[in-house]
């Protein structure tokens, strides 16, 4: 049965025990995304911080979220926070890109496990176009919130 290919143990684990869930302070920016076909929602906050050395590179200091949705969307949010927290924004954006490409690969992607780590488990989901949106929901919300946060940081910098 194909179900196991989609619902890998890793996904079910994150679904049952999501990491970093719950909205936290402090944060720079928040975004709220909805999947209009099923009504699933996520509210997501990001906190960016300048690296210790005071140079330009910003780091993803925290991602917190509240969400309602299916196993795929919940697990994907959880895996994402594990992956992105602690990375620089540039590194995180690169991961987002890699994950997006995997999800749009219609089951034909060859995920880079070095970059995606646990997120490679979602490879099977990419065969189900209707579920790709679920897997991407939190990622899109993160991108959105990060872009907002960067915009604020810039303003602040001026």
């Amino acid at each position, binding site marked *: *049965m*194909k*179900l196991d290919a*989609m*619902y890998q143990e890793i996904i*079910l684990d994150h679904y049952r025990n999501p990491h970093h869930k719950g909205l936290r302070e402090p944060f720079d920016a928040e975004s709220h995304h909805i999947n209009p*076909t*099923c*009504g*699933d*929602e996520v509210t997501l906050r990001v906190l960016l911080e300048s690296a210790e050395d005071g140079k330009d590179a910003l780091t993803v200091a925290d991602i917190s979220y509240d969400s*309602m*949705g*299916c*196993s*795929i969307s919940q697990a994907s949010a959880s895996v994402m926070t594990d992956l992105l927290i602690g990375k620089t924004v540039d590194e995180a954006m690169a991961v987002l890109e890699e994950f997006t490409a995997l999800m749009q690969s219609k089951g034909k992607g060859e995920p880079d496990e070095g970059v995606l780590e646990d997120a490679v488990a979602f490879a099977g989901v990419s065969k*189900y176009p209707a*579920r790709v949106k*679920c897997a991407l929901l939190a990622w899109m919300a993160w991108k959105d919130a990060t872009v907002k946060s960067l915009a604020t940081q810039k303003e602040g910098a001026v």
Partner: protein
Amino acid sequence: MTARELDVETIRADFPILARTVRDERPLVYLDSGATSQKPRQVLDAEREFYERHNAAVHRGAHQLAEEATDAYEQARATIAAFVGAPADEVVFTKNATEAINLVAYAMSNAATAGEEFARMAVGPGDEVVVTEMEHHANLVPWQELCRRTGATLRWFGVTDEGRLDLSNLDDLVNERTRIVALTHQSNVLGTVNPVRQIAERAHAVGALVLVDGAQSVPHMPVDVTELGVDFLAFSGHKMCGPNGIGVLWGRGELLRAMPPFITGGSMIGTVHMDHSTWADPPQRFEAGVPMAPQAVGLAAACDYLNAIGMDAVAAHEHALVEYALKHVGSLEGVRIVGPTDPEARGGAVSFTVDGIHPHDVGQVLDDRGVAVRVGHHCAWPLHRRYGAVATTRASFYLYNSFADVDALVEGIREAQRFFGVARS
């Protein structure tokens, strides 16, 4: 009811797609007819025959093909009109039920600037439009937008915990300020069949019009516009064994004549000058452009097909299926039916939630077993909010479904519970 029992096997043989397999060679169990129905060979043949023998632009030519095409198109109109007990010239073809409803809503806002002749249909500030909390977005958003364009006020009936329309405030909601009441005949989520006549009587008593969304009733039960006692009826071809790309608006002749046009262009005009135009009589007034004649012919073939089986028989068959489904799905532990659990005044849509499993995940397990259902809010988001559900899983039946299909559904739900570890046993 003396309805014949349906010979489901024979019927299924008419639908080529039902013979296919999905996901690792599993036979298809199609329980998503509420979204769109499958099409029998007879309908596809009729449409193809039109293209291969009679295709031409209808109402626009004097050559033989144009005559044949026009004839086929108008014959189709007569057949489809008769299917709901209406005269042919009261039936307007649209692209789907959604357009049919928008047509009425736009005619009402256009009436404000369309001249004296059409002033009767105009609405404005102080006027009220009434819908219900169980409407499909297709019969809700167009009215929100009508109110936005005109300054009228939108009001709505609530629903009871049992999934029925709450009519306790009927006389308050439908009053002298009400211009139109738009409601569904049968809910696409709850399955509920609404007491349209009763509401129409109140509406007419206060001078309001009544539009019924028949997208989920006309395909599934005998519907007669005179018996319904309403002013407009909208439905879609694709949900009743007909082609995509065609919908129907039936309207009382007198009202259609009082309505200014919606979409304008060729074939709906009286005369055209650079600075002004006049309109043809209905139904042409509402059919601008080259119409979907092949689809009309296909939909007429669908009506013939359904008539040959008998709409009474179709309704009785679905009633039996839904009764069986309510019993067997409803009795599963952890499963909650959203909608009446009593099969009376209830059609063949069974929506439910499964404790601890998101509908997407339920749907995925079913799909993996070849059982096609719909998951989500089914274009009835406010209704889902009302019942505290983000989404539901919906099985919907049609004449080609069997009791075995329901068994497959029940088995699939159990499997989902096992897979996600929420089953007791």
